């Protein structure tokens, strides 16, 4: 029963009991006692009845009623204080333990449930952060280890005998650049998580971007003899940040070219599908194993461990892609047949096309910038 009802009930009971007591006392005082007196033959003294009555009411009845009322209400409200004390006992280590409910199913329980929900969500977030930090430090350790090894080797070599005395320093610079890029990407993802990255809201001719990226794909894929084919390129306009969308496409074609086979294929297609712009990028290649597939867009996840050692990358590309797609209100899906091919399908909401839009798709429709969360 709710607190409200309980308190109301207690209030009613207290009032009822008081009235009963008053009535009983009055009955005794004004009816029973005089009758007893009469029978005993004593004289009437009406004034004293009222005085006695008043004394009893003021010195006994009212204090007793008030006292018991106070005590009852204190008992009803006590669970709130207990709950507050329990809140104080919650810390990072026991976030996952839910607080117990009372047996009453009342407002206090509702508060407890809400609090338990809150701590569960916080716990999940902290878990994510912990895992991410672990992975990040692991990834950063690799280039640091390489740099350390280079320095140690160079120190061991006697100066003057090394054929390329500055080679190791250049190697260090390369590793530092790689580290700096990882840190930059992590910073971007963290800011995106916190909703601090500003994205533009303009009309973007998505087909133009896709065509450009297919040309870039051709160039990126050329060294390994991979063929690029733009199967379809419907004239579709989306609303969003042109540079970030270009980054999305570049990341995807970069992956398609990197994780491919010599003489393989990359096929791009842009089509309207159920009111969305659907872009699919399929590439031949080693693919992604079913165990890794569900997590492939998470940070630092790359194919199967050990399989991609020769290929440059930190596993952050798809995480960036997912952020960009979701920030534009779209969806991204990866499917793969290990050893055969991988397909990434991106769907973005189409910008509503009006007559005035048709002529100049790049015209900013009032530059409204949005803060979008991942």
């Amino acid at each position: 029963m709710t607190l409200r009802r309980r308190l109301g009930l207690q209030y009613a009971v207290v009032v009822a009991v008081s009235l009963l007591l008053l009535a009983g006392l009055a009955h005794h005082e004004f009816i029973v006692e005089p009758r007893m007196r009469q029978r005993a033959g004593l004289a009437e003294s009406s004034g004293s009845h009222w005085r006695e009555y008043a004394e009893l009411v003021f010195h006994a009845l009212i204090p007793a009623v008030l006292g018991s009322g106070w005590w009852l209400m204190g008992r009803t409200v006590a669970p709130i204080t207990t709950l507050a004390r329990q809140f104080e006992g919650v810390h990072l280590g026991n976030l996952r333990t839910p607080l117990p409910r009372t047996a009453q199913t009342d407002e206090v329980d509702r508060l407890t449930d809400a609090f338990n929900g809150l701590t569960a969500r916080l716990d999940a977030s902290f878990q994510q952060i912990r895992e991410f930090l672990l992975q990040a430090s692991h990834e950063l350790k690799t280039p640091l280890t390489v740099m350390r090894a280079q320095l140690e080797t160079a120190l061991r070599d006697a100066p003057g005998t090394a054929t390329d005395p500055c080679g190791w320093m250049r190697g260090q610079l390369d590793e530092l650049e790689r580290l700096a890029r990882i840190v930059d990407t992590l910073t971007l993802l963290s800011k995106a998580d916190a909703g601090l990255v500003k994205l533009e809201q303009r009309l973007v001719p998505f087909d133009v971007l896709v065509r450009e990226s297919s040309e870039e794909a051709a160039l990126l894929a050329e060294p390994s003899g991979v063929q690029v084919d733009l199967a379809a390129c419907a004239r579709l306009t989306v609303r969003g940040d042109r540079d970030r969308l270009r980054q999305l496409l570049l990341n995807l074609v970069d992956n398609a070219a990197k994780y491919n086979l010599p003489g393989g294929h990359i096929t791009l297609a842009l089509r309207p599908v159920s009111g969305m712009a659907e872009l699919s990028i399929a590439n031949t290649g080693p693919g992604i194993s079913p165990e890794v597939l569900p997590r492939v867009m998470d940070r630092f996840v790359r194919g199967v461990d050990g399989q991609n050692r020769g290929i440059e990358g930190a596993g952050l590309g798809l995480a960036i892609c997912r952020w960009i797609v979701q920030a534009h209100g779209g969806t991204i899906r990866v499917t793969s047949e290990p050893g055969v091919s991988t397909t990434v399908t991106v769907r973005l909401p189409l910008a509503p096309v009006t007559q005035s839009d048709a002529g100049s798709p790049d015209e900013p429709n009032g530059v409204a910038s949005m803060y979008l969360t991942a």
Partner: protein
Amino acid sequence: MHVLIVEDDARTAGFIRQAFKEQHIDADWLRDGDEALAAVLAASFEAVVLDIMLPGRDGLSVVRQLRARGNHTPVLLLSARGEVAERVEGLEAGADDYLGKPFALAELVARVRALGRRGGDLKQSVVRLADLTLDTAARTARRGAHRIELTCREYRLLEYLMRAAGRVCTRMMILEQVWDYQFDPGSNLVDVYVRKLRQKVDAPFATKLLHSVRGEGYVMKASEQPL
């Protein structure tokens, strides 16, 4: 080349001045925004490297004041934040370029040099380097008598590098000017395109013109040694 550095952190300023000195760029140093404003208006600098966070007047305010008073000294803004939005704000305030911290000294030097040349660069329609000729009106490239087939993007990259001939162009500068990216998209796109350009422009000919500067970027210049 004579430039002004306005930076209140002595260590950072020290590194910058050292880097400039090695590149034969004369650099004065001030720590305060108001002093900087007075100095730029009084003397004539080829470029100003201006930190945004300054005691006294902040960097953006200095730029706005300079432009309001008709001073067109090229300004490169330095900022600890380096966000795209701040970059746009800086450029709109009248700055000519923007670098977020931490930056590579080589990047700063390359950009300051580019700023210094802006004033005197007339858009010639024909650009030449050794036997490489670019007809910017027709968008064609030739070496000697041979016509070089280039895609649109390859041509734009070549024109940019040619107009900057003798000066190092960093990857980020190329991404900004040729690809119009406001941030680093995290790809080796530029390297791939430069490689392609080399295949077409340098490989078939004796004199190599397109050079890599390790840790910095690319530069076009006539060099005596054939590869």
